[in-house]
Structure formats: structure tokens, C-alpha cells
């Protein structure tokens, strides 16, 4: 039984990473109807930004603000940095292509992904980098007999808080209503007096910024970061988004957590070698049963 709960915690941790990255995917898709393939690479860039801040200051940040303070500052740095990168990306790579239609947008997003990945490789090199042990909190304790690290608990709490905050903003605030209105119909939203540009700016800042935070947490949790890590996470988060229902905020959270849980339970109880096969079979099964994902709304898409 202890093993089962351990696997549950494993699944929730990895699931919360997927969910945070999936949130960004889903927000951008909901408003822009754009699958932002570069999202995973922004997540990787976030990892590298946090790493660089902690390394460049040769742990100065950690020494002065403590382990948790250093972690918070690195996350804030990645949050702002990746938010800016997201806005910049929209300006450079997406906005000029809007009139050309969605296919061109997708190609542009793929190009952005390749650009970011190679950019990271050019700056930080192709060998994996590691967050030094001195900047990572590593206190271990026993929770109901299960070995957990404080970092793991903080990651879980922070991820859930962030998800709730985003859900609250989108569902319960006036600005959230503007976002939802823009997602439903951009031109009507404009007629209602909503500044669509502000909404788009906000979406492209916040979505990637969440990924940036997830990137730093990921780097701290696993220590090792590599230039091509964005690809795997992007793919998994994209899967989570589809599973939960693309464009749907709670859907992205549930999709991410579910994917993490399925992965660790299957790998833990059946076979690690067949894990991905199983996960994607489940995905296909869900899509056959509910083509718009678990929480996706029925929409008549004009293609």
C-alpha cells in the first residue's frame, strides 16, 4: 500500500509539471486558436534562465536570500523573462502572420520552436547542465511513512495555487470574462468594447510565464536540464491539453494531473517499457468517446 501512495505522489508531481505547461498551451489555444509549438521550448528557456541567474551570481542570490528565497527569485526572474519572451514572440513570429491564416501560424510556431531550441544549444551548449546542489533545497522528511522532500511538497502546493489563481482570473473576474468573450468570438468581443489587443498581450505573457516557473521548478527538482527538454514536455503537455479538452482551463489541469498519474501507475504496476504506448492508447480511446476531450465543450468548428 505504501508503494501505491508513493506512486500517487510521483504521479501528482510529474502531473503538476504537465498541468502548468498545459495551462499555457490551452490559454493560447483558447483565445488564438493557435497551437503554440514553441511553448515547450519557452519552458526549457525558463529552466535555463533560472539556472543562469543562480550560477551567474555564483550562488550570491542563494547566500543572501536563503535556499527558498533564491528559488523564489529565480522563479520570478523566469516568470518575467519568459513572459517578455512570450509577448516578443507574438509580436515577431505570430502577429505578422495572422492574416495568412492558421496553417501559416502553425508553421511559424514550429519555426519558433526550432529557433529557440537551437538558440539554447548555441548559448548554453549541447551537453546537459545541472543546477548545483548548493542552490537546491533538499531537506527530506517522512510524511505518513512516505519519503518526501520539502521541495516536492512546495512544488505541489505552488502548482495547485497557480492553477487556482489562473482559474479564478479566467472564471471569476471581469477581465476573465473579457478573455472568455475574446475566445468565443473576437470581432463581437471588440464590438462589446473589449480591447482584444490587451487580452492577447495578457495571454501571451501569462501562458508562457507559467511555463517559465514550471521550468525552474523542473530544473530544481530533477537538477539536470538539457537544450531539447522542451520537446518532450511540450509533447506531453500537448497530450494533456487534448486529453482534458483544448481551450479549457480546468481541462488542462485535470488532463495534466491525469496523464502524470496514469504514467506513474502504469509504469509502477505494469511495465515501464510500454508506458507511452498505454498512455497514447488511452488518449485515443478518450478521443473516440469524447472527441473534444474530457471537459471540452461541443463546438461546431468551421474549418
Amino acid at each position, binding site marked *: 500500500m505504501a508503494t501505491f501512495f508513493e506512486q500517487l505522489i510521483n*504521479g501528482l508531481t*510529474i502531473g503538476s509539471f504537465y498541468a502548468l505547461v498545459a495551462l499555457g498551451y490551452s490559454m493560447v489555444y483558447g483565445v488564438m486558436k493557435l497551437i503554440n509549438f514553441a511553448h515547450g521550448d519557452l519552458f526549457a528557456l525558463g529552466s535555463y534562465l533560472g539556472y543562469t541567474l543562480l550560477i551567474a551570481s555564483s550562488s550570491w542570490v542563494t547566500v543572501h536570500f536563503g535556499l527558498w528565497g533564491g528559488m523564489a527569485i529565480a522563479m520570478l526572474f523566469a516568470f518575467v523573462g519568459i513572459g517578455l519572451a512570450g509577448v516578443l514572440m507574438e509580436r515577431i513570429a505570430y502577429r505578422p502572420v495572422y492574416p495568412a491564416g492558421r496553417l501559416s501560424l502553425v508553421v511559424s510556431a514550429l519555426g519558433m520552436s526550432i529557433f529557440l531550441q537551437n538558440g539554447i544549444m548555441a548559448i548554453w551548449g549541447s551537453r546537459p547542465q545541472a543546477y548545483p546542489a548548493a542552490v537546491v533545497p533538499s531537506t527530506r522528511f517522512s510524511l505518513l511513512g512516505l519519503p518526501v522532500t520539502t521541495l516536492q511538497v512546495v512544488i505541489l502546493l505552488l502548482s495547485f495555487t497557480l492553477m487556482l489563481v489562473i482559474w479564478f482570473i479566467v472564471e471569476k473576474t471581469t477581465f476573465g470574462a473579457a478573455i472568455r468573450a475574446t475566445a468565443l468570438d473576437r470581432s463581437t468581443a471588440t464590438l462589446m468594447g473589449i480591447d482584444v489587443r490587451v487580452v492577447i498581450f495578457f495571454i501571451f505573457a501569462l501562458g508562457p510565464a507559467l511555463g517559465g516557473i514550471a521550468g525552474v521548478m523542473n530544473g530544481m527538482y*530533477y537538477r539536470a536540464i538539457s537544450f531539447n527538454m522542451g520537446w518532450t514536455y511540450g509533447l506531453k503537455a500537448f497530450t494533456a491539453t487534448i486529453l482534458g479538452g483544448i481551450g479549457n482551463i480546468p481541462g488542462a489541469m485535470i488532463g495534466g494531473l491525469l496523464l502524470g498519474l496514469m504514467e506513474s501507475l502504469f509504469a509502477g504496476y505494469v*511495465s*515501464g517499457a510500454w508506458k507511452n504506448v498505454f498512455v497514447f492508447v488511452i488518449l485515443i480511446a478518450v478521443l473516440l468517446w469524447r472527441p473534444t476531450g474530457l471537459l471540452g465543450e461541443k463546438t461546431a468548428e468551421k474549418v
Partner: protein
Amino acid sequence: MRKAVSVLLVCMLAAVLFLSGCAKKTGTTGPIQIALQAPITGDYAYEGQMAKQSVEVAVEMINKAGGVLGRQIEVTVVDDASTPKDSAIAAQKAVSMKVVAVIGSYGSSVTEPAADIYEKNKMVSVGYGCTAVRLTMDKQRNYFFRTCGRDDAQGLFFAKYAVETMGAKRIGIMHDNSTFGKGVAEEAKKALQPYIDAKKCEIVYYDAITPGEKDFSAAVTKLGATKPDVWYFTGYYPEAGLLIRQARDAGLTCPFIGGNAAVNEDFVKIAGLDVAKGALTTEEPLVIDVTTTLAGQFRDLYQQKFNTLPDSPWPVYAADALYAIVGAIGKANSTDADTIATTLHTNMTGVEGITGPLLFTAQGDREDVHQVMYEVAANGKLVLHKP
């Protein structure tokens, strides 16, 4: 205008193809041409670069000592970019250059298509990092040799060490589903069978992880639940580093043994020295621990030229592939491929390489490749493990 440009481009292309097609031909005078097929770019670029440097050092040593048949050696590099597809192209290129023999390549799945092309063109090739059993045992290749060992030797070494030296009763084996990783794991399993039959040990865990991912906690938890006495991971170092970190975080304390691609400097960096310390690995000896005279000279010259030493065993096997080829040419007193191949198979007594005598079996495998156990020392360097 546009037409003129395209005509010009076609002409340039033709010229390039022509020039690369009629590259240096080995006659009976002038330097003897040998090709090195290595992953200069791509995933294993780091290994390819070290191989290139090692062969450069070996060429200098051989030429300083007077070359062979009174002629100097010249090595041209062809890049297989770490992929089977580019490997075939690289092999065609080496064939069209009409070199006497080829050194290469590193990865098993990359070497296989190239070995077929060399075989068809009756050109001797000597692999240096390709350890998959099937390369020599699947079908008879008369022109293919390798200076490195075979995965089954590693599996045997592990089995013997784990059961007889460590006295492990419960053994966990983990691989990464790659040709190499799965190969070693299967061989280890096979080698353990006699011990299992004798009720000396059991395999309590046998499963794979997915390379490229970061979270292996599910696999680690599953492994931990089986309470292994020793844990053998046969994949590559990026996953190995993450695995050992996550296992120690989850409270799994059993000894970790990596296969010969799992433990290097990057492994230590990823895992962190605190958990990497004491990790073991089944490996071919590093050049720093080889005691032959040639190894000493090789170390001095390599250090002098590149101010470091290769930190994996494979580059030195590339240099030894050159020693084997040159030794065979000398003994055969000929640069004819068939004569060289026969000499390599049957008449290499007395030919010494950096890693020892260069003798080959009828299949083209190196005889007497020794495996050793390395340990990550307190300073993060690999040292020979004394049980």
C-alpha cells in the same frame, strides 16, 4: 538571369561531386590512405571528436616510428553524423576514395549499414565502439573486425561480479529500450541464468525506462519495492544521472552499477557528487589505467597535443583499429584488402596495440578484451574499483 544562376549552380554542384569523387587514390607509392568513419556531428559528436584526436595521435606515433612498408600513413575523416542513414553515405564516400581500410564506427546501429557496404566492396573495416553482439554473430562478414569487446562479455562480467564478488541475491536490471541498452540487459540476464538455476540469485526487477524523459520516479519506486541487493542500469548517462538521484531521494540505498555508457563526467554532474560518489560501472579500461608501453607514449602525446586525455575507453580503440590495420599491412607486406583481412584473421601474433595484443577471432571479434569495474571517487573521477 534566373536560368543563368541555376546553370551556374548545377555546374558548381557537378564540380564539387567530381572533385569529391576522384579523391586521392592509393597507389604503390606515397602515403597509405586510411579512412576514419566517426560521428563528428550529431548526438555522439563528443565521442567522434575524441576518436578523431586519438587517431591523429596514433598516426603521428606510427609515422614517427617509420610508418609501414616504408610509407607514411594518412587518415581522412568521413562523418557519419551518428545516424545509420548518414553512415551509409559516409561509407560510400570512403569506398569511392579507394582507401586501403576503414576505421569505424562508434555506435552499433550506425556501424551496421556501413559494415555491409564495406563488405560488398571488399574493404576492410575495423569498428571501435560498436559492441552489439549481432554485428559479428548475425552473419559472417569477412572484412569486418572490431577492437572493442562485445555486449555479452559485459553481461558475463556483470553477472560474475554481482553474484560472486558482491554476493547479491536479488538483482534488478533496468535498460532504456535502445539497441545497445536492451542488448546489454539481455546478455546480463542470460549470463545470470546459470546462477539462477543454481538458486544463488534471482532477478527481481527487469524493465525499461524511456530515454529523453526526466521523471523516473515510478520506475524507481517499483524497483525499490522489490528490495534489490544490486541495481544494474545499461542505458546512457543522462538518464543514469537522473535515475540515481531520484532513487537516492526516494530512499533506495542499494549499490548502483552502470553499463559502459552510463557513468562519465556528465553523469556525476547531473546526479550531483553526493549521490554519484561510489557508483560503479562495468567498463573497458580507460587509457589512464592501461599499462602497455604504447599507452604511455599515447598519453604523453595526447596530453601534449590536446592538454587532456580521452575520458571514455572508445577513442583508444579507434587508435588501436589503426594499429591493427597497420600491423596487418606490415605482416602481409601488402595493401591488398583480401590479404589484410586474412592476416587480421589468422596471423596477428606479435602485433601490439595501445590496449594490448591485437588478435581477432574468425568472426572478426577482438580476443581477450578485459572488463573492469570503475568507481566514482570522492573527487568525482573514475578510479578502478577494489572490492
